[in-house]
């Protein structure tokens, strides 16, 4: 297993290198002057644009340009984001933890509820629970996230005054920006525990409820349906019949045998879902005024902030590659045949 993981890890830099080549190739559609904007922090620097072009080899042959650009990317110099009014690396550091927190808050419920309901639905095919899960899947898949988000906001914030938008409330805002609060990870749930500030923890957790509930409902649909169909397929196979004939309990047949084999497509989908959430969920972040990376990425794209777009694309690619690798490892865990192959 370790060898398998090692192989996958060894491939990671190569894949990332491929990604950088692709992004660099896309950059070549821009003129050297526009690419020079990657390095401009002050509009007045535009007067010395030629010097910037020279310094970064933007008119040199492609391999020289690529090497010069890659060196900067490797040391974390991704340029200056006009949208965030800070260097891209700082913007990622500022916005990513909020998205990471939201992703974790949404992903595990998606996974557990999706797999559980999908399994139940397959086992009780055409029964109430199956119809109910179909209803959940159809509404979740077809309902735009901003509609659901707004409805939840209206009910739970507007009417019941329970879950406000934003990342935290005003009192907590003052506390987390005071000297007595140490920012260690940027993840406020974690930092609040490290600071032993439970009021912050509960406040941040409360602010995560509605955006994560929106994401759970919207994103769970596909996972639920895939689990159901995969389970139905497995439940019809001979080994399940054999297991039942051997006298295994129905619970063991479903949980230990059928579901274990049905998980492979679920793992694939989960990794994609995870990356999708980490890349930022723009509409959810906008509706809930949540300062995540998705909102920044889309703002950067809207405002033709090339360094911002590039930084956000690089981050998404990195996350995708890592998540894919983790999915490969998960396949191997779920199905030993993959390890052997």
């Amino acid at each position: 297993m370790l060898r398998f993981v090692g192989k996958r890890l060894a491939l990671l830099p190569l894949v990332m290198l491929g990604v950088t080549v692709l992004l660099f190739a896309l950059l070549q559609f821009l003129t050297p002057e526009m690419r020079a904007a990657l390095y401009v922090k002050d509009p007045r620097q535009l007067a010395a644009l030629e010097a910037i072009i020279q310094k970064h080899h933007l008119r040199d042959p492609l391999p020289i340009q690529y090497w010069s650009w890659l060196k900067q990317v490797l040391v974390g110099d991704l340029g200056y984001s006009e949208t965030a009014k800070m260097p891209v690396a700082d913007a990622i550091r500022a916005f990513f933890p909020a998205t990471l927190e939201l992703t974790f808050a949404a992903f595990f419920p998606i996974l557990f509820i999706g797999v559980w309901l999908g399994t139940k639905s397959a086992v009780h095919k055409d029964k109430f629970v199956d119809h109910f899960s179909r209803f959940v899947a159809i509404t979740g898949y077809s309902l735009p996230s901003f509609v659901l988000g707004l409805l939840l906001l209206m009910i739970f914030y507007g009417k019941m005054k329970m879950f406000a938008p934003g990342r935290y409330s005003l009192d907590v805002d003052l506390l987390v920006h005071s000297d007595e609060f140490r920012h260690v990870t940027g993840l406020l749930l974690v930092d609040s525990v490290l600071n032993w500030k439970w009021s912050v923890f509960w406040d941040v957790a409360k602010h995560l409820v509605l955006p994560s509930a929106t994401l759970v409902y919207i994103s769970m649909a596909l996972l639920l349906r895939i689990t159901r169909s995969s389970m139905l397929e497995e439940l019809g196979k001979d080994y399940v019949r054999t297991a039942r004939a051997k006298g295994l309990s129905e619970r063991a047949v479903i949980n230990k045998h059928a579901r274990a084999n049905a998980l492979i497509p679920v793992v694939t989908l989960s990794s994609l879902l995870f990356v999708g959430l980490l890349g930022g969920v723009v509409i959810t972040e906008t509706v809930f005024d949540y300062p995540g990376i998705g909102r920044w990425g889309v703002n950067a794209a809207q405002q033709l902030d090339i360094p911002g777009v590039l930084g956000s694309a690089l981050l998404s690619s990195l996350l995708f590659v890592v998540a894919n690798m983790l999915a490969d490892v998960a396949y191997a865990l779920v199905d030993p045949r993959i390890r052997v192959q």
Partner: protein
Amino acid sequence: MIRAFPALLALCLFTAPASAARSKNPDTLTRLGLSDADSLDPAWSYDTFSHEVIANVYDYLFMFEGGSVEKLIPLAAAKVPSRANGLISADGKTYTIPIRAGMVFHDGTPVTAEDVRYSILRFMLFDRDAGPSSLLLQPLVDRDSTRDSTGKIDPKVFADAAKAVQVDGDKVVLRLPKPFAPMLTVLASWAPVVSRKWVAEKGGWDGAEATWQKFNNPSKTSSPLHEAVMGTGPFKLERWDRNNKQIVLVRNDRYWRTPAKLKRVVIKAVSEFGTRKLMLQAGDADTITADRPVFSQLQNVPGVELIDDQQMLDMNPVAFFTFKIKETGNPYIGSGKLDGEGVPPDFFSDLDLRRAFAYSFDYKGFIKDVMRGKGTQATGCIPNTLPGHNPKQATYSLDLKKAEEHFRKARGGEVWEKGFRFTLSYNTGNVARETLCQILKRQVESINPKFKIDVRPLEWPTFLDAYKGSKLPVFIIGWNADFPDAHTFVFPMLHSRGDYPFTQRFKDERIDKLIDQALDETDLAKRKDLYAKVQALEYELVPHLVILDTVRFRTQRDWVKGWYHNPIFPDAPYGAYYYPIWKE
């Protein structure tokens, strides 16, 4: 899907529930606006969002009393100079301003007359491109820039400025080269008192003649006052949180007057109106920015007060054409050529083209449908609330036939034949400006399928940097009065050295001359006549499209007390001077 968002939001909110009856934070006022500030340096900032903060953390020499735009009360000054009290000389050229005793900066250091002198000098000599420095350079040294037309610094400016602003004991004496009637009203909104010692310690200008050129026309972020404050105002800057687009002000308990009633003021940018409205209803916000198109969504909301029909001293919105667009690294002009996929840098220097655009906008429809019938079509850049406005001036109206004629003539017929594509920009969250863009786009694109306009919202600081960098072909913005005088509109909107024409690269010598003449003219009738001529040329040359003279409304929770409207105040009626405000 995103486009359907506002409509759906409106539907959802139509059935919004009853509000909380009591304020959640009785000593904290939360205001939700559209955008983050650009810079907190009073010598750099020339935008309403930044100045709303500046006006609350600094003290000007004077301020307008209540809603008046004429009557002044002293702030950092101990008295308002007048001829009656002998502080303005008989010839109107010398102003003696006694400085208030016992005032301290936020760090506790005392304010001296030297600090006031330094603040005025710094405001003038900072002189960033298209910044506010000309507001004091003009009356005090009779020039509107510290640099010549080639951008070279004139080293003599310091001596002239130092001669014009002097300290006499605990008084500051201003010596004007010629009388300037609005002098005191300029000082009621500009050049607040900053701490010389603090700025110098933080690496800013130390006030010496030998060093001023180094700090002339600096980059925005190089100033120590860009994101920090050292003033004397009723509030101190607690934090500027750029990630959350939020500024937190805290009460200055050492204020020379009774400290403010509010302990904190939170000014936060929330671009979605729906979220702003929900937060207002829930009592998490006390006042929000809401423009006329969303008026009906705020009516009859329990606990929410709409204070309508506020007269304005502004011209908003206005569509500006950039005559010479900066081509370098500019993503807003497509290919940069007239090939149907872009526009060349001098695209809008063509008069026929600008007129074609002027005939392509539905002014009456905009006022009727977007502004819900509130306001009248503007006849020039001087608003109808100021002397100098000419109600008889001809205006453009929607006429697609005339528009087509002008489009066909533009650039010798090339525009009609090849078509164009460019980006039309406005600041994110401004619904009225967004709608203006969409109307203009729809009408222009309907004339010739080869005409393409991309409408793009930009975040406020990005928008300001882009237009000031002459990168935006056409941009929608507005202008608030710097002081209550027609000059504060004609100069920044039409004079070649004014804020917009400088960035547009628009220059007409006849207009410049008329504006300069009008500034010196003391006969009101003659001055009005000169401004009428300026507005006639404005109509003829179309450097921008003025749309309407408007009235606005303020949205606040009914527990907010003490607010008053002063049209001079930055971002009024949404922004406010928070000192007299409290919550019940």
